[in-house]
């Protein structure tokens, strides 16, 4: 990401320089009357028609177009980098979503894959609110070999009565060739008046 950003910045600088050179060329003819005006009498200079203001609209459009190109290039590089770092055949992504949240206020989620901590995320009230409004967070993106694996998610927060609450969820899954997407889902179980933690495998 950083590399692609630096590349994009370099490209932007080069394009800006070329734009500057172009504008310098465009302004060069306008400089000539200024030097010649010194030799001409002042009256003749005043009578001469004022040089037309350079049309900057075209330049603005060109700058906007270059900016758009840079943004597009940055996006392509980001996608390319992600494809290189997390190739489809080994990629594993874990998402988090929340439904309702009456019985659980999310504070932290810790993810362990094959007994190794891969992610730990502390949620601010604003982030928890965004999840409650239907947001889905990509909590982890990594690589796993083909075979059997175990995902454990530990959720901490405030439970039904505002007390500290901690629960875990576990999923044993088989990673085949191709990307694997898993979803951690926190929902309210109205019947038991308790939160429910589930790990879903998106086939």
């Amino acid at each position: 990401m950083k590399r692609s950003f630096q590349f994009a910045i370099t490209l932007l600088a080069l394009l800006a320089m070329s734009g500057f050179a172009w504008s310098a060329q465009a302004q060069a003819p306008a400089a000539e009357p200024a030097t010649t005006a010194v030799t001409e009498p002042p009256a003749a200079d005043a009578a001469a028609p004022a040089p037309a203001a350079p049309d900057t609209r075209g330049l603005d459009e060109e700058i906007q177009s270059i900016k758009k190109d840079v943004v597009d290039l940055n996006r392509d590089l980001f996608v390319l980098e992600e494809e290189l770092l997390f190739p489809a055949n080994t990629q594993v992504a874990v998402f988090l979503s929340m439904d309702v949240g009456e019985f659980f206020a999310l504070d932290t989620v810790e993810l362990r894959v094959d007994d190794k901590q891969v992610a730990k995320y502390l949620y601010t009230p604003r982030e928890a609110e965004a999840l409650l409004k239907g947001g889905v967070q990509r909590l982890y993106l990594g690589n796993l070999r083909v075979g059997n694996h175990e995902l454990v998610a530990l959720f901490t927060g405030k439970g039904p009565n505002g007390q500290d609450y901690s629960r875990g969820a576990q999923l044993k899954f088989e990673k085949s060739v191709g990307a694997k997407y898993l979803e951690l889902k926190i929902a309210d179980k109205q019947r038991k008046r308790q939160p429910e933690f589930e790990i879903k495998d998106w086939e």
Partner: protein
Amino acid sequence: MLGAALCGAAEPSYRLLGQSAPDFALRATSGSNFRLSEHRGEVMLVAFWGSRCGQCGGQLAALSRMVDTYHSAGLAAFAVNVDDNQVAAAEFAMVHPVTFPVLLDPAKSIARQYQVDNLPMLLLVDRAGVIRYVHRSYRSGSDAQYLDQIKVLLDE
């Protein structure tokens, strides 16, 4: 001028100056969690402090006054405590109350990320999230310097 030059020469360089402030989320003494990136668009003061630090109380009080004054203009602050002993941190925070969140970093992971090598250490982060100024001590006259820099960042 010579004094300033000598001071500048003596001040060790800070590698993160001019770079984006690394994002972090920490729990506050109030129990809420706070994330730095949620304050993008505001001028942020990030003050690292410890309960054994003699200058920290004075600095926090000064920063609290500044945040009170310039909060409406977009100034906010975090006081990041790096004590192992969270009880001592909480007691210190009660004796030196501030109007902004006091965050706890007992593992010092954020302090390491920010290369904190002295206490108090104050970072001034601009509205774009770039670390613009760093102060590794607090003495008389520091307030005026902080204010000048804060005003520059608020005006941008």
